[in-house]
């Protein structure tokens, strides 16, 4: 069971501001998602991931990287080739 204070805490971790009405709505949605997991838990039998998929590896060979210009294309703000981000303490 998720309570409003849990949602507030998670929103804080993700640095997302939410208002009171959203809090109610998110709390309901969180609980609905968790209910689905309860349903999944009732499924019988082996539900582990595919056992034959492991050690999927690549060789240590360099491929060209994006140009600085392309790398920064989606950035809201940039400065001197850097992404510019708000200070997080």
């Amino acid at each position, binding site marked *: 069971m998720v309570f409003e204070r849990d949602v507030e805490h998670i929103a804080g*971790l*993700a*640095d997302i501001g939410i208002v009171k009405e959203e809090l109610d709505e998110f709390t309901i949605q969180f609980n609905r998602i968790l209910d689905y997991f309860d349903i999944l838990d009732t499924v019988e039998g082996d539900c582990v991931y595919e056992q034959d*998929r*492991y*050690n*999927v*590896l*690549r*060789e*240590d*060979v*360099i*491929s060209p*990287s*994006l*140009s*600085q210009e392309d*790398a*920064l294309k*989606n950035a809201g703000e940039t*400065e*001197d*080739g*850097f*992404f*510019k*981000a*708000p*200070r*997080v*303490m």
Partner: protein
Amino acid sequence: MNMENMTAVPIAGSRSEQSAGYISQAAGSPPHPEADETIIGLEVHCQLDTATKLFCACSTDYRSDGPNTHTCPVCLGLPGALPKINRKAVEFALRVAKALNCEVLLESVFSRKNYFYPDLDKAFQISQYDKPLAVGGYLVIEGDKGEKMVRITRVHMEEDPGRLVHKGGVDRARYSLVDYNRAGIPLIEIVTEPDMRSPKEARRFLNKLRVTLEYLSVFDSDKEGSLRVDANISLQPEGWFDREKKSYKGRNRVEVKNISSYKGVEKALTFEITRQRNVIRKGHPIEQATRHFVETQGITTASRSKEEEQDYRYFPEPDLCPLRVSSWVEQIDLPELPDARRARFIGQYGCSPNHARTLTGDLKLADFYEKVAGNADPALSATWVADTLIGELNYRDLGIGSVTPSHIIELVNLVKSKTLTDKNAIDVIRAILDGILQKQPAETPSQVVKRLDLGATDSGIAPAAIADVIREQPQAVADYESGKKEAFMFLIGQVMKKTRGKADPAELNAMLRDALDGRGQ
């Protein structure tokens, strides 16, 4: 393996001692933090020296390039980009696990560690959590009371976050600039048990670990920021710390983050001990907290981050398959490691234990020494490399790589054949290194000897020099004759000045004494 029997760490004291300590402190008698045991554990992050990043094919050789020039959709965390594990990084990590005597788990899994911070473009770091690559090893270090074993809790792989730049200093900048060139560089995290008992032991552990990783050719400590350390430290009344249960019956521990140099570890921990002692002395409790090391000031400051493990919401990385690599370990041929090489230097070259430790304490230095020792008197070479050359290099902030082995071979041979006195050999080294500093064309020792006229002569010029000095310094001679020992040192100094260090000092000493003592008879 039974670790308990193989260690020099004292086990917690008896029950009665513990409760007695507790009662007396609770009753308000003054605490004695100086007598407390210092309990230190480390988390060490090292960059693995692969050509490409952990989950993408971007080059790791980013240090001399501009920001955000070594990125791709994977390491920028763009939607839909899929990571793929670098085989070399896994092999390197396994080498480390084997060298640290760890057990590699049959299956290990990458997990997402979620936190919101500008250095993580995806808002999660791909790391390992409940199924790390390897667990339960050890590394033997030179402890405060002889050799001791520091237990390794786990070794796991993860990606490096990006790098933040704060213009105008970290205190004043109003925003962060982010460079993702470093994001995705393969890291290995090595977590120790709280087995170190002083900042010095912590530094020794780090040094030993660094050398070991270099011997394994998986790590380059010369690269800036290639090693970062978090340290846990607490001060516990003797006997309160239960080593097996790792329980802190006494005081809370503090985690110090952001240590990025070998010296920094000792500095940060020494500061933290003093700080905690002051808190205890005032009768306040130690809060379990995370603190930040400020390298430039040598202090730790309270950090506001209060994120707890559950806040990271770890879960298995759905885009990566598990690793099953425990069977690879047998096929790994470990190279000769520092302890074995040290023993060999003592046996094969007749190095003193101290010289052997110094010489094998750095891979490049050890390789350099072996080149010299193969072509000159090995024991004499050890003295010249370990005692003189290193000091002169450090003084000039030069690395061993700036010197050519053939020059030191020639120098040692000149000393061995008494063509060069010890004193003038030092001058030759200094002249060569100064030349390197000033970027002059390289000079061989013989060239320096010739240019500065430093070659040893037979003692032929000595008698004349001694006679001159005795004539020129009547006061000092009189002082010597009246029994003043310092006068002899002064006179020998004058003689050496005249012979310009080219005569053998021991011989000069005897000759001057004979000359002085012979006068009265």
